[in-house]
């Protein structure tokens, strides 16, 4: 418990508190008048209103589209299921800049929709909502589908034996068992969309602004720390409330449910209705998730002389003035992998210890800590980045330009995923097994190694892989943190995108494709070790 607490205090609590305090106490004096001013500003109300509204709409749309998907993944067995489950998770970890561009190609003028039906959705609310579905589809499929697959069909059968119709059995038996998972997934999607940044920036046009975007603007562009601090507090309050509700539903979900091996409940679809359902979901996945990804791949291959690997070759080219990069851009792949590996190590150690502590100790304080671990997901990257700058600036903790800061910031985002994945598995380990080991002479550490570790090894691998993929795609904090050496993949992608010329754009697409493939590969590796009692992700 001590290590994760120290980690969060030092690398999250302290920096964020420092930057917020700088804003709220500009001259060492609390300036609450400004807070009142900001909070009563109609623009603030408008921003908050839009933030909540789009998050609610995105959540509803995501649930509507992804719940049938959760069912399909839980109950049906079909060829390529593992691969597909990995693929639908790829968007979740892709940088938004890249995705935004793919979406514009599909939804904008002369986009696919425009050519087919004359529909244009760019810079409309629809583009934002669809992009949010694109990113969060996997959250629902994994959270809800994971549990759904483990629900004992025997219970529904029992209800039908007692005279309930198929629908009634589903409504009275399965739905109540599923409801907490649906609520938990909905809250996660709400949290992610509430704090949406990249999607809004790219697709929102100047019209749509969320709290997160406003915090970014006030901090990064205007350096209006007082206003940013008030907005940060506002966002914190909202996110904390969300997390509290989330924690409650998760706790309820961990109540007594009859769970069985997910492999046993899935079977081939039967009958026209089931095939139609499966087919419609596959079409949805193809249209909503795969098409944008395919656009990126297509563009990375579409060279001046037809399709080819020109842009990939350019990436690997030796650095010279023409490439504009101090190192071969392909080196960014190495940099990203290195950072992600360190970030994963930190996330797994901190998250694993936190999960172990949360398993063994109950109580209000510990539950609060559980929610606290999720806070970095709801905090603007610029707040953390600038917080690092002013908080960790004195020896021995002058970390401002240490390379370690990048993986540390990435680990902050990875830890919640590790905890969420490990917790249910660790909680499922019978305490008496540890006792059995103890009376046989194993010290607590030895007991953990001999009993817990073998049982959670797969969950640990899953958690590590997820943390790895998330670190790989992490962009927000990475750009704000000073680095001496080469850029990471997402940063390199945006550098290419930020310059005119065909070669630059093509290389950006090629790098994005590589990033996508690396993410997909690590997620696919996870699918192969997926535990039957996996956590939320």
């Amino acid at each position: 418990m001590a290590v994760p607490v120290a980690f969060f205090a030092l690398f999250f609590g302290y920096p964020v508190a420092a930057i917020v305090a700088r804003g709220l106490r500009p001259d060492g004096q609390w300036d609450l008048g400004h807070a009142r001013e900001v909070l009563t500003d109609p623009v603030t109300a408008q921003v908050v209103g839009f933030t909540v509204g789009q998050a609610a709409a995105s959540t509803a749309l995501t649930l509507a589209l992804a719940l049938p998907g959760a069912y399909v993944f839980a109950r049906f067995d079909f060829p390529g299921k593992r691969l597909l489950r990995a693929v639908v998770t790829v968007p979740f970890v892709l940088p938004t800049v890249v995705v935004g561009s793919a979406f514009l190609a599909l939804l904008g003028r002369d986009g696919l929709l425009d050519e087919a039906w004359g529909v244009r959705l760019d810079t409309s609310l629809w583009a934002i909502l669809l992009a949010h579905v694109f990113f969060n589809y996997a959250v629902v499929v994994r959270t809800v589908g994971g549990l759904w697959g483990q629900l004992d069909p025997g219970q529904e059968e029992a209800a039908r034996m007692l005279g309930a119709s198929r629908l009634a059995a589903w409504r009275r038996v399965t739905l109540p068992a599923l409801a907490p998972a649906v609520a938990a997934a909905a809250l996660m999607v709400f949290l992610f969309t509430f704090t949406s940044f990249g999607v809004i920036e790219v697709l929102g046009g100047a019209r749509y602004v969320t709290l997160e975007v406003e915090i970014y603007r006030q901090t990064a562009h205007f350096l209006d720390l007082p206003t940013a601090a008030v907005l940060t507090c506002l966002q914190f309050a909202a996110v904390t409330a969300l997390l509290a509700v989330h924690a409650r539903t998760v706790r309820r979900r961990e109540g007594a449910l009859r769970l069985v091996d997910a492999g046993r409940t899935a079977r081939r679809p039967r009958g026209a209705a089931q095939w139609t359902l499966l087919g419609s979901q596959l079409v949805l996945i193809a249209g909503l998730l795969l098409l944008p990804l395919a656009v990126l791949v297509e563009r990375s291959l579409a060279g001046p002389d037809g399709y080819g690997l020109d842009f990939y070759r350019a990436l690997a080219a030796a650095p010279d003035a023409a490439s504009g990069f101090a190192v071969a851009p392909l080196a960014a792949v190495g940099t990203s992998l290195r950072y992600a590996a360190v970030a994963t190590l930190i996330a797994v150690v901190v998250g694993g210890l936190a999960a172990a502590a949360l398993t063994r100790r109950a109580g209000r304080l510990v539950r609060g800590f559980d929610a606290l671990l999720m806070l970095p997901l709801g905090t603007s990257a610029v707040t953390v980045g600038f917080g690092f700058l002013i908080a960790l600036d004195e020896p021995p903790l002058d970390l401002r330009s240490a390379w370690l800061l990048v993986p540390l910031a990435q680990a902050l985002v990875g830890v919640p995923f590790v905890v969420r994945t490990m917790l249910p598995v660790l909680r499922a380990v019978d305490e008496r097994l540890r006792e059995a080991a103890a009376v046989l002479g194993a010290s607590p550490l030895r007991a953990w190694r001999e009993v817990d570790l073998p049982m959670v090894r797969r969950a640990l691998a899953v958690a590590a892989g997820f943390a790895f993929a998330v670190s790989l795609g992490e962009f927000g904090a990475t750009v704000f943190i000073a680095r001496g050496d080469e850029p990471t993949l997402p940063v390199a992608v945006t550098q290419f995108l930020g310059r005119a010329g065909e070669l630059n754009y093509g290389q950006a697409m090629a790098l994005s494709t590589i990033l996508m493939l690396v993410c997909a590969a690590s997620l696919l590796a996870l699918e192969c070790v997926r535990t039957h009692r996996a956590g939320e992700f």
Partner: protein
Amino acid sequence: MASLDVTGLTVRFGGHTALDGVDLAVAEGETVCVLGPSGSGKSTLLRAVAGLRPVDAGRVLLAGRDVARVPAHRRGVGLMFQDHQLFPQRDVAGNVAFGLRVRGVGKAAARERVTELLELVGLPGAGRRAVASLSGGEQQRVALARALAPEPGLLMLDEPLGQLDRGLRERLVVELRQLFDRLGTTVLAVTHDHSEAFALADRVVIMAEGRIAQSGTPVQVWERPASPFVARFLGFDNVVPGTARGAAADTPWGPVPLPPGTPPGPCSVLVRPAGVRLGEPRDADGGGLTGTVAARTFRGDHVVVLLDMARGPRAEAACPLRSAPEVGERVAVGFDAADVVRLPPA
């Protein structure tokens, strides 16, 4: 010197006292069985001795040494859990060898000992089998072998046969008894089944609400339950309040004869079902006790007859198969003084 010596042991959960000043000693080589209904604190006693549950007051001495500050893994006791708690990711040999491995026993020596133990518990050659593939009885044997492997100074068994079916239980209890006698192991077991306890133990300790209600050999306990509670727990339902007056006691049923030398005064009266004699009802004014048969339960070699007594609560009688009355029949009821026990008042 006793292998285990517990004095004044007290454990509380929140407001509830699970163990309330328990004193208990187990001599070396002795098998003691703690018997009690669920919630009486018997499992807590084992966990406190094993060091898995912190103690609020009292002392635990193992081989004369106070183990208050010794963590569970250094106490050198064995504990066989109620549902065995075999390590699912290890095979049978891996489970049995666990205690040897953590003690740093060499591989070859450990392998030899595992083979020996598996033979001892009647599972020769099962070392490579997966735990999940074992039947309940086999799991129980593996759990026993695992607990025995490090040669613990004290072996504790928590409901060792609880989850097994009756036939297996009766066979295994005999095997266990023989095994412990042969190995000379000191054993402290807990169970809620008195027949299991009587079959297994040299001495039986009966617990109620965190305290020890009675301690003695199985025969002593069976013959002379220390209280109405113990009597009822042992399965005797013919327990009524009464007042001893010389050769008989006044009870709600009427007068019940007492064995010679029973001290007078308020008491509880226990009549074993075998000591209830049924006969042809005499004249209505004959003065003897009568009852009506309310139910019959066939028990193989005898029949248990439940009687609605003319006065007082129902009574149970054990009858030979052939002479058992039919339901609804009115019978005369008599008591055999040799099967009547005077207990302290409730």
